[in-house]
């Protein structure tokens, strides 16, 4: 019954509160600040991508001696899983915008599950690579640093989305004021887009 009343309070609260001018202006600030944060995160990834491409093209050739082979089949399905989670997150936000709380909740849970599946896939890939590790440090410098950073971002994203779901259940967001959900979706898409680049430079290049 506690769950039902929380959800009830959430539903009731969700329909009140017209956005006032202060909310509208601070929303602009928060969205821009978050976008700039994503830009700086992009610079972080770009720096390591530069380092990987530089090392790959000025070193002993690629793959370096002793480096393990990457599993393209696993990475393909894993990538599709992550991209799919981007699609489900898009649906989650769309449903919120169309005032459908239940569908929002279902789609965001699907996103979290798919994100967790992606991380599991990465762990399997890491395990396979470690099994055939030839001691090539430079492979680690490129592959593990970047995919590790990305995996950490996915992990944080999963926590972030879970927190958003819990907050939504408690009625923190209304159908007019839901900036947190928008920002969470932006972050999740960002993590997805980074993976497009990483997938290309490690598995397709």
């Amino acid at each position, binding site marked *: 019954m506690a769950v039902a009343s929380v959800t009830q309070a959430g539903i009731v609260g969700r329909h009140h509160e017209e956005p006032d001018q202060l909310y509208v202006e601070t929303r602009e600030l928060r969205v821009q600040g978050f976008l700039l944060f994503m830009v700086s995160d992009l610079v972080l990834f770009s720096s390591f991508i530069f380092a990987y491409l530089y090392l790959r093209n000025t070193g002993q050739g690629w793959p370096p001696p002793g480096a393990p082979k*990457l599993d393209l089949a696993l990475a393909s399905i894993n990538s599709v899983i992550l991209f799919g989670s981007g699609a489900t997150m898009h649906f989650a936000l769309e449903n919120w915008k169309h005032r459908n709380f239940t569908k929002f909740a279902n789609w965001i849970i699907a996103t979290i599950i798919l994100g967790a599946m992606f991380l599991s896939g990465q762990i399997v890939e890491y395990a396979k690579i470690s099994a055939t590790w030839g001691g090539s440090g430079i492979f680690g410098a490129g592959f593990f640093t970047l995919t590790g950073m990305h995996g950490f971002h996915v992990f944080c994203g999963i926590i972030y989305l879970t927190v958003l779901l819990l907050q939504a259940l408690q009625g923190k967001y209304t159908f007019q004021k839901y900036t947190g959900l928008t920002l969470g979706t932006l972050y999740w898409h960002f993590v997805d887009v980074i993976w497009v680049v990483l997938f290309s430079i490690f598995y397709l290049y």
Partner: protein
Amino acid sequence: MEGISATVAHVERILAFIFGIVVFFVAAIALKNDWKSKGLENQVFKMMLALLALGAFLAILASVNVLAGKGVEI
């Protein structure tokens, strides 16, 4: 054991191919529906949906080995 691991990879590729196509069309249709939205954050969303579609497309090609890098197990 060899036959089994080949099958796993096979399943992975088929799933990647099918769901890749699904995700590609979902992203492309979402992009088309949102095309006229305004505001900075919506432009960013549109860019990301486009890149998502691109990613799905690349994954489709990867699943059938049309695109495969050096150092990758085919």
